[in-house]
């Protein structure tokens, strides 16, 4: 087939598509730049189906999911705004993985920092096993600074999202401390683990031998939220613990599981673990 023939066919197809799905002629009003700079709220990003035949139905569907549905299109493509928002969210997700928790945030909650064997972010992503082991230095520091055999050990880690800690720790952590108080539980010395994976709980369990351990860790960022946190809980964590022995409350962020409510609920879960002397799928909640 000649090149010009192909071009001709492509042109015909495009014309046909244009005819079938005419581009929205009304130009979208360009979002005004905020006086204070380029600050966009969720509303600025919002696009919708113009004159939907069944608006109530569309609204119900949109309300049922945070996914990008009912955002409309131009011709056969998404609107520029939708594309930009997708790229924006993707960039935020990448930033969350690559970012670091500010010293200031950790100091606010009196958390000292130890590291796993993750070396650097690149190795951290390639070698999950390294994020499960603490460095020798870290083991010494913990042994030195922390109360041994505490009833509850609280550990915070950046995991895959530093911004999860930045966003949620200020709400989850104090609510968690309150819930320990309400449930008459006592906590050991909390600290921060840099470059941690969920199973670093086991190593810490070996070192400090707490009755229960709760790890507040940043989740793998997604396109809905880049700052989502999980609370992993385990009864007598130690080497050889399997995934089904852990409990988790996930998706903790202001638009997901409410951080203060999640923090308040952790105390109840820990109390039940201590009463039933078990965690994971065998725990009756």
């Amino acid at each position, binding site marked *: 087939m000649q090149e010009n023939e192909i071009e001709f066919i492509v042109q015909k197809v495009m014309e046909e598509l244009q005819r079938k799905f005419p581009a929205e002629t009304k130009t979208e009003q360009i979002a005004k730049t905020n006086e204070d700079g380029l600050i966009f709220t969720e509303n600025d990003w919002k696009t919708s189906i113009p004159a939907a035949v*069944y608006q*109530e*139905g569309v609204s*119900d569907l949109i309300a049922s999911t945070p996914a990008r549905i009912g955002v409309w299109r131009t011709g056969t493509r998404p609107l520029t705004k939708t594309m930009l928002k997708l790229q924006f969210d993707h960039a935020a997700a990448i930033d969350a993985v690559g970012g670091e928790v500010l010293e200031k945030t950790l100091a606010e909650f009196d958390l000292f920092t130890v590291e796993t064997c993750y070396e650097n972010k690149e190795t951290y992503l390639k070698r999950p096993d390294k994020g499960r082991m603490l460095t020798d230095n870290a083991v010494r520091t913990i042994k030195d600074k922390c109360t041994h055999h505490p009833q509850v050990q609280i550990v915070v880690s950046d995991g895959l999202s530093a911004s999860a800690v930045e966003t949620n720790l*200020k*709400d989850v952590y*104090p*609510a968690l401390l*309150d*819930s320990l*108080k*309400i449930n008459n539980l006592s906590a050991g010395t909390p600290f921060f683990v840099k470059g941690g994976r969920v199973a670093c709980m086991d190593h810490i369990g070996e070192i400090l031998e707490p009755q229960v351990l709760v790890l507040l860790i940043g989740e793998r960022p997604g396109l809905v939220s880049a700052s989502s946190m999980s609370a992993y809980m385990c009864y007598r964590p130690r080497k050889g613990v399997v995934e089904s022995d852990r409990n*988790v*409350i*996930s*998706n903790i962020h*202001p638009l997901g*599981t*409410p*951080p*203060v*409510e*999640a*923090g*308040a*609920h952790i105390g*109840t879960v820990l109390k039940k673990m201590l009463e039933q002397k078990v965690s994971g799928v065998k725990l009756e*909640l």
Partner: protein
Amino acid sequence: MGMEAIKSVGIDIGTSTTKLILSELRLGRVSSHFALPHFDIIDRKVTYESDIISTPMKNGDEIDLMALAGWLEQEYRRIGLSLSDIKSGAVIITGETAIKKNADALLHYLAERSGDFVVAIAGASLEGVLAGRGSGSSEYSKKVKGIVANIDIGGGTANVAFFQQGKVLDTITFHVGGRLIEIDSAGEVSAVSPSLQLWLFSKNFLVEKGMRLTLKQLSELSSVLCKDMLDCLVGKMPIAAVKSLVHSASSETLPMIDEVMISGGVGRLALEVPPSTLDDAAKYNDIGPILAGELIKALKNYPLSVVEAAQTSRATVIGAGMQTTKISGATISIAPEHLPLRNIPVVKMSYSDTALEQYIERFFLQGKELFHGNFEVPFAISLAEMPYLPYLKLKELAEVLGKVYTRLFPKAAVLVVVCENDMAKALGQALRLQLAADMDVICIDQVVVEHGDYIDIGEPLNDTMVPVVVKTLAFS
């Protein structure tokens, strides 16, 4: 989770008939195991239906309490259940019986003698909604695009509820019912309800006790009655134009209806062949069968499609038994020794970023007016349309709530807070840590209540949640 089903009773004391149903509500976890626990009623099943009996009356304006109580006992014996087996449900008094002299006392008497957490409810609007849920209209509206009106016609009133996608849009109640005119087989009128008089007068119909009417005359009267009601429902006539026929309405203008379902006793009769003789028509000693026949005829003149109801005469009682109980969120703070709590008036408020103390105090003073001498639990605070509160703001809110409450209600023993959003455990524990040890806290969430509603809170289920019944003002 292997949870026990809740046995729930429904009792409907109507203008002409009384009935009871027993149902089982099964709870199940509806949230994923990685999220905070959240439970809901996942299955509802009717397990027993009583016979439909005539509502026992002492005389024209008093219900025979002892006869009703005796009937209830007999039914429970037949089912083989004791009162403590029944964990929830509702006694509803409907139609014209609600205005009888001893209605209020009777309702609460029966509710307290029907089970652990059986509540008393009344009110035309609520009745219409429950009938629509029981008849299947609410469920049906979820499957179609348009608005479905459920017309529940009993002996004394026609209660209409408008549903869209399972949500209630509006309600209206008419003085249209099968028992508003009582007749014998010779067509002699033995009673005319006072609530119909105004309309009869406005239409120049003369119907009085002792008069003898033909089937044709009764049919004509019923036909005009149906026409006026339907004209109003489809918007042909404004509500104000048929004022004498309207008992109450939730708004001035009604939504446009696409489909209708007919339930209630008259709804059941509408499925039968219309009466051809007076003898036939007067089999219940009232105009019910005639009204039903005329309604079906009249509906043909309107662009409405009529959908057959899943339940007719038992629609309201099924709604009352199965649809009144809601389940709170499962992360809450409770003080079990204070439960159940009944008939707590609700003060609704939101949140203010500035002058929080004055803001809260204003609402608490409103609450002071609502409470009826219950010093221990003066009222419940409903927190609605709340922004997401970070920990520090939540703590501040708890502090101010506790402070103002203790100051204005020094005799109170419990602070009851009902939140719309999932925040009750956090707020509850913040309140607990802030209040004196002798003040208990009940803080529940995922329940929507309006200002002026009454709320009943039952004993905890599975130690983690409570059944809740929200009632719009029962007797005004």
